């Protein structure tokens, strides 16, 4: 019996298709654009054909036009940056608070028993309910808005971090005990790295809520920002402006989420999981 290792024709053909693999890599993110592009094109077609007025739901061409106008006048940039700034500040404060308190509650049962019930009760309060209170306490300018966003960001990050710390594999904690790590060193060298993947997910979740809360903040008493643009469009009867503001939200929100994923990626290279990026 002979076993011959020869390249068979199928393999040879596969090797020659190698350049197409580069196309495959580009195709994956392009797949994400497929759905919105197809839907947008379909709606454009329907409006052009006259089957729908496109007044209340403007077709992509009109929205794009509105975008260009807002960009030319500098308004788009101004409002976007203001909103981005508010989300950034609220996110920073919320994450800082949630990380410290969540880590403490995750690691120490005493701390958890003391503060977790209260935090869970506060978490149940819907975002809109906070607005009048913060406006009363902190005024109608930036402080109340940033605080509202920070509150929104706080809860998912706190919950995610605390839960993740409690789920750390006991075997790894024991390695830390065998090497006589102090409480603080144990958190720093074993617990926090172990929970990093779950922490990043909770950050993304918190950021999503931050974007939600910024609308709530801007819908009540703002003179700048994408939420203001939304209200402005409604009050002046400009549906295109409303949709443009929403599209801007979607794009900037997605971009910030993508930034988190990008920033975290080098710290998560060690993971041994199903996910392929």
């Amino acid at each position, binding site marked *: 019996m002979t076993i011959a290792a020869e390249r068979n024709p199928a393999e040879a053909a596969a090797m020659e298709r190698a350049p197409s693999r580069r196309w495959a890599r580009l195709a994956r993110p392009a797949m994400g654009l497929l759905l919105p592009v197809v839907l947008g094109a379909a709606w454009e077609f329907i409006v052009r054909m006259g089957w729908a007025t496109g007044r209340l739901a403007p077709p992509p061409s009109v929205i794009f036009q509105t975008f260009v106008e807002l960009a030319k006048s500098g308004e788009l940039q101004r409002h976007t940056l203001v909103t981005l700034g508010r989300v950034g500040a609220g996110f920073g404060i919320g994450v800082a608070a949630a990380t410290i308190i969540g880590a403490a509650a995750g690691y120490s049962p005493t701390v958890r028993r003391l503060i977790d019930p209260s935090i869970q009760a506060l978490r149940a309060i819907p975002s809109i309910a906070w607005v009048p209170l913060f406006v009363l306490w902190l005024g109608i300018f930036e402080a109340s808005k940033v605080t509202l966003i920070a509150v929104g960001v706080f809860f998912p990050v706190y919950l995610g971090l605390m839960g993740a710390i409690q789920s750390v594999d006991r*075997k*790894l904690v*024991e*390695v830390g*005990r*065998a*090497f*006589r790590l102090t409480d603080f*060193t144990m958190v720093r*060298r*074993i617990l926090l*790295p*172990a929970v*990093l993947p779950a922490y990043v997910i909770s950050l993304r979740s918190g950021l999503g809520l931050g974007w939600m809360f910024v609308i709530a903040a801007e819908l009540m008493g703002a003179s700048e920002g994408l939420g203001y643009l939304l209200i402005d469009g409604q009050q002046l009867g400009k549906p295109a402006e409303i949709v443009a503001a929403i599209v801007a939200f979607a794009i900037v929100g997605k971009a910030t989420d993508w930034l988190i994923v990008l920033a975290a990626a080098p710290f998560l*290279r*060690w*993971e*041994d999981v199903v996910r392929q990026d």
Partner: protein
Amino acid sequence: MRSCSNQESERCCPSNASARPIRNGVHALGGVTLEVALGEIVAVIGGSGCGKSTLLRAIGGLDPPSEGAVVLDGERIGAPHEKIGIIFQEPRLLPWLKVADNVGFGLGDRPKAERAARVAAALKRVGLADKAAVWPRELSGGQAQRVAIARALVPRPEVLLLDEPFSALDAFTRADLQDHLLDLWADAKPTLILVTHDVDEAIVLADRVMVMCPRPGRIFDEIDVDLPRPRDRQSAAFDFVKRRVLAALDRSLNRTVTAADAEPKAAAGAAMWW
């Protein structure tokens, strides 16, 4: 004496402990007295539930005994100690650190240059110098366990505790790592206390084999292994000691050993004493 989870054990102080009633607890160890000399290799073997892991964890300070004391060089051990290293059944490498960082984990307070030098030397010693910059998830089971051994040996402990360190590996890797462990042991001759359920492993490695029996856990018999190292697993002398250990194990589990059973069996079934 501190109340803790449910064991009683004594080391280096003989006494007859009156059992303190513990609600819902398992009386894991009922009076163990064990003295181990410096540089000795002791294997602890026994049926399941005989408390051998509990004993090892008590010695290591991970689960201090509810009664009695573990004493090392006159010092009571109530928590993990820098002179005692522990190797677990799984490698338990930290997945977010590369191999070199894992090996150097116990040397956090040393200057960087010294740490790098000792880690490199340890990795070379276990034959994994080329894997220093690799993630733990890329290692095979045997390689990961070797890294764990390197990690435990790098702080130069006086006592090394091994809790069934090779039980998760295949037979070839196991034999290989047993020889490797002896090789490493010959460097600094730390005291080794090894818990295992593999009789061959116990006899290849140990100077003394302690046979434990369960309910409650205590030392049933002690068998000296007076064979010169390196030990030949196929030799008649080895086989003789093995039969003694197997007979002791059978007796410890209250199974009678007939004259026919005491003769060497040709089949591999002889190793299955449970």
